[in-house]
């Protein structure tokens, strides 16, 4: 059977996860691959746990990634990375944004945010990267580009047609913000490569 790559994207509602998964899907399409992407919208998701499944290869059947099937986990938030860590396959990669957003039970003081989240992630997935996505996005000029910084980091591990990412950004992002997002993308990619996994 032909090889299918699965990227599982996790985060918190409002972090730009849907746009990131769209850009990834579009880049895969432009690289000549079959693509399926699945996500669930619905209940007031602002502040809720949000995931996106993106799969690409010669022929994709199921649009969802189940436990132990993701080649890469891209998480916009640390706790959410840990929550979905079992979706990563043996030998897979976790790219984790170093941001902590307290869920309701933590905000209310009923539970604690896991203090050792990244240690646990690394123990489960030795090939893990912790990125200062928000800070890098600020360097580019707008924290709203955090999602594209992280996408840039992801691109370092995917063998796509070189121009596919640029084209995807141009196709999906309003012209005003294209330049800034390209900068964000390149910065994320550079930092991930320098991380040297």
């Amino acid at each position, binding site marked *: *059977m032909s090889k299918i790559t699965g990227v599982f994207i996790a985060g*918190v*509602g409002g972090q730009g996860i849907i746009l990131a998964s*769209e850009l990834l*899907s*579009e880049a895969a*399409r432009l690289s000549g691959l*079959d*693509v*399926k*992407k*699945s*996500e*669930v*919208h*619905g*209940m*007031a*998701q*602002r*502040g*809720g*746990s949000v995931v996106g499944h993106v799969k690409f290869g010669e022929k*994709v*059947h*199921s*649009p*969802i990634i*189940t*436990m*132990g*099937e993701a080649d890469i986990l891209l998480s916009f938030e640390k*706790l*959410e990375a*840990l*929550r979905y*860590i*079992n979706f990563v396959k043996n030998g897979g990669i976790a790219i984790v944004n170093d941001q902590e957003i*307290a*869920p*309701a*039970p*933590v*905000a*209310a*003081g009923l*539970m*604690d*945010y*896991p203090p050792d989240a990244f240690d*646990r992630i690394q*123990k*489960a997935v030795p090939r893990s990267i912790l990125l200062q996505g928000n800070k890098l996005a600020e360097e580019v000029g707008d924290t709203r580009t955090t999602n594209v910084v992280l996408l840039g980091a992801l691109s370092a591990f995917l063998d796509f047609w070189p121009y596919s990412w640029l084209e995807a950004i141009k196709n999906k992002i309003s012209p005003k913000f294209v330049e800034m997002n390209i900068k964000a993308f390149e910065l994320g990619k550079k930092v991930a490569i320098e991380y040297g996994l």
Partner: protein
Amino acid sequence: MTQKILLSGNEAVARGAFEAGVLVATAYPGTPSTEILENIVKYKDHIYCEWAPNEKVAVEVGIGASFGGARTITTMKHVGVNVAADPLFSFAYTGVNGGYILISADDPGMHSSQNEQDNRRYAEFMKIVLLEPSDSQEAKDMVGIGLDLSEKFNIPVMLRMSTRLCHSIGLVELGERVEHPVKDYKPDFKQRVVIPAHAGLLHVALEKKLAQLSMLSEVSPLNYTIDGDFKFERKRIGVISSGISFQYAREAFPEASFLKLGLSFPFPKDLCRKFAAEVDQVWVIEENEPFIEEKLRAAGINCVGKEKIPRTNELSQEIIRNRMARIINEPQTDISDLPPRPPVLCPGCPHRGIFYVAHKLKFTGTSDIGCYTLGMMPPLEMGETCICMGASIGVAQGLEKARGTEFGKNTLAFIGDSTFIHSGITGLAEIVYNKSNITVVILDNSITAMTGHQEHPGTGKTLMGEDSPKVNYRKLAESIGIEHIFETDAYNIEGLTEVLKKIRTLDGPKVIINRGRCILLDIKKMKIVPFKVDPNKCTACGQCFKLGCPTINTGEPNDKGKKRAMINPLFCVGEACAMCQQVCSSGAIDLID
């Protein structure tokens, strides 16, 4: 080859409607179906589109449009079909003029619904054609195929989607629009007036149509087989499947033989029999109900089905592998200690204030379908029942009839503006006519919020973007006979407290129109200065925590070890809300300088 583009199942259905010459599209929003009409409206130069007040009206308008000669589509979520079932059952008898397709978007796994009913059962029950796509391309193509069948056999068609199809994207090859101009309209009393004398004949005619469709189903290219690779260990297994389950099964057992059903009612019994004869064992892999399996068993075809594949929740390739081949994937890392991250009322949500006050004043609350159902969660805990669209009012009334007048006077029925128009108005008539003492709270946030901001008859705008008269809730309630009507500012805690204290002293049914626009409508235009807590003034009384605002977190404890409040400036909407500032008795909350 034409270039393929990425479309979600919902976008694909919209495109399919455009290409198939649809002229009228009606719907009531509901996850996971909402984006279909939001995408059809992009073709508004060709297609009349509307949000109807509810699914029943959407279907009735659709029936009229079809009778009138237009190719028509109506879309809704699975439970919407319950509301629309009445006209649909009759429509099966009358048949169509312009082709008619109903999109039922089911929600296995209940990502955003109150149940996981399998509407394939409805197609059979209503005696209409059932089509089941399994990806975006099929979803697009089957809209046109369905409309052709509808016109050829003079019957409505149901296209059954599910959440994973609606909200998954895949590659789709686009086609051109083929125009189907409005057909002639002539009155046809015997065909369209379902009095018993006519309906008896129409039922006979419908059974004949179904018999013909049944023959078509046996040979339709929508029902096709894939030969398995019998070299592999999975021997001669034949899987019969439909919809998204087919994709999961293909991924789980790529070497098996498949019979994929796209036209599954009328059911192709003989085709299944033939397929079963060519394999050693038949597996039926379908989400939720044993719709295919029961038909196989009734035809005496042996199969393995629901004794292994669960009826509840969504399927996945993992569940199928696990149940059919005992391939078990244990989680490697224990995550059972992690704090959950449930959806919450947004920072600045206008619903928060009245829930806070009602909780403080110990009211009983019945709730309804919308964002505000989340008011049930701690610490607000307001809304102890939620049944279906509009039920808050009837349920509150029933509580009073069971428990007496005093209980009624202390009961609030919470219902959003869109839900109120959908099916709350009859509830108001009930509480006037049958002498209730409850209070209906119309949570008027000026939009259908939970499904992602759709207009409705109370907002003054149509789906096509035109201005339209607004329903006047006060006049409506007055004319039904409500004597005590209050209009409140959703962000004014003191005002809300005063009104709620007053209503429990009043006899008779009451209405509160609680006004506050959904904060997400305006947040992008707002210049926000967030609030902060002055730790020197904060007495750690915990009152602001009782608002359940996700921006109010526990901060540093004071010298008695009690936790002081801290506001996360990233998500606070500032003065547009200011509820925390109003409930703070020590003046510790103020805007960041």
